[in-house]
């Protein structure tokens, strides 16, 4: 399978401090790759680096194009959708306005309307709350909203920043079931970062382990799942 995302020697940071010290990883077309790591390891920064939201050095090639150093708005136009840390809800806007904004860069109006229906089909709860101010949605609903907004781009690559964060287990399961659906039915590739290794390894085919800005282990999910140290420190059994 072809590589969709190819990252080599990625360095990134805030101001003077470097947070990522040269990451190399890749993502196959149609696959789900997860980056696992403890709080503060640099997972969010990795996703932000791919989207051009922080200063970067190194190579990032997406679908054959070098995107390191490009503006976020232009990277989005190539088909990279980001479900950010903290969900990034437009709290003053309605649910539907939030969802529609996801398709802002698209010009194929008819297809956008169809996609809106499809997204509501995945998340019927959002449809019920279409006209509600998005800031009043529950945490789980806002997570769904963020995923819906990202899907409306009709992306090639979906970046997901801890979609399980702060949510009840049942909601987490529901969201992951839908993510898997989206991956298999719509062939959307995903780069998923998680602290919750159990659930991430359940959905991903490849995994990387990030510790304080360095990748310390990588492999297929099955291999990682059975690794002794991972089991002890991340999976808890």
């Amino acid at each position, binding site marked *: 399978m072809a590589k969709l995302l190819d990252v080599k020697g990625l360095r990134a940071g805030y101001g003077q401090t470097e947070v990522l010290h040269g990451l190399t990883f890749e993502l196959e077309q149609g696959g789900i790759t997860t980056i696992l790591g403890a709080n503060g390891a640099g997972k969010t920064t990795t996703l932000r680096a791919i*989207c051009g*939201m922080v200063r970067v050095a190194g190579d990032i090639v997406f679908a054959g194009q070098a995107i390191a150093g490009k503006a*976020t*708005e232009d990277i*989005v*136009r190539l088909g990279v*959708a*980001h479900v*950010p840390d903290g969900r*990034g*809800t*437009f*709290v*003053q*806007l309605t649910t539907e*306005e939030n969802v*529609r*904004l*996801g398709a*802002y*860069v698209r010009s194929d109006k008819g297809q956008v309307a169809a996609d809106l229906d499809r997204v509501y089909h995945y998340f019927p709860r959002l449809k019920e709350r279409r006209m509600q*101010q998005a*800031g*009043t*949605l*529950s*945490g789980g609903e*806002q997570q769904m909203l963020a995923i819906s*907004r990202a899907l409306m*781009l009709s992306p090639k690559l979906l970046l997901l920043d801890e979609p399980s964060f*702060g949510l009840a287990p049942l909601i987490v399961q529901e969201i992951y079931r839908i993510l898997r659906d989206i991956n298999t039915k719509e062939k959307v590739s995903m780069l998923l970062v998680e602290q919750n290794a159990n659930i991430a390894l359940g959905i991903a085919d490849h995994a990387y382990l990030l510790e304080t800005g360095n990748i310390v282990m990588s492999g297929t999910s099955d291999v990682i799942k059975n690794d002794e140290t991972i089991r002890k420190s991340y999976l808890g059994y």
Partner: protein
Amino acid sequence: MEAFLHQIFSGLAAGGIYASVALALVMIYTATHHINFAQGEMAMFATFIGWALIEWGGLNFWVAFLLTIVIAFCGGFAIERIVLRPLHDKPVLSIIIAFIGLLVIFNALAGWIFGFTIKAFPSPFPTSPPFGNRFLNWHEIGTVGITVVVLLLLFAFFRLTPLGLAMRAAAFNPESARLVGIRVGLMLALGWGLAAAIGSVAGMLVAHVVYLDPNMMAGILLYGFASALLGGIDNPGGAVVGGFIVGVAENVLGAYVIGTELKLSVALVLIIGVLLVKPAGLFGRRIVTRV
């Protein structure tokens, strides 16, 4: 009774002006969290351009009116791009100073180019008493009409068009806006353009009443501030309502209670009063957010 109704109506006309200025202020505030102290002088300068187009260029009022709005839009756009964009990460004081700099430059330029003598600004409306009622006049009716049309157009633009939605999104949450591909910087500049355009409409409508000179907008800006604060500085609808409330209250109080001599002090008291008693304004948003 008729005289009283006339005060109310004059108040609505003034209120439309205040509402427009307040809306311009609110638009920039929601997008940048800065109060544009130069808003009034920008409107004044645009009004001079309109005056020049009519008096020097011999254009028809409405042609000049529309052309001025376009010019004001471009001017506001350019100011954001050239002057304010490079300052976006500077401390508040720097930005306030830049606004004051703009205020001073526009004031001085207007005086330099057009002179400091007071000028009459034409009204496009007939001077005959409307419906044979001597307590009304067409300019006031026209002012209310035009401001209401402008406000409705803006409302439709922000609510119904994708660009309007994108501008709101960029103002509320720039980071998320970038993540859906919105060019936030461009949206800010567009917002400045729109604010300047709205201000120019207010300027051209009020210039007929207060006469045109470089210091024409100072008092009106103050009332615009008061209106914006009263309605809630982050709430466009509130600012509009605030404008009309302030306009009517000012006229009625001015006619029957305090006289017109202390207009600016009334605005001062209103501003400080709102800031102290209800800083969020009457309709200030309480954004409900769950974490």
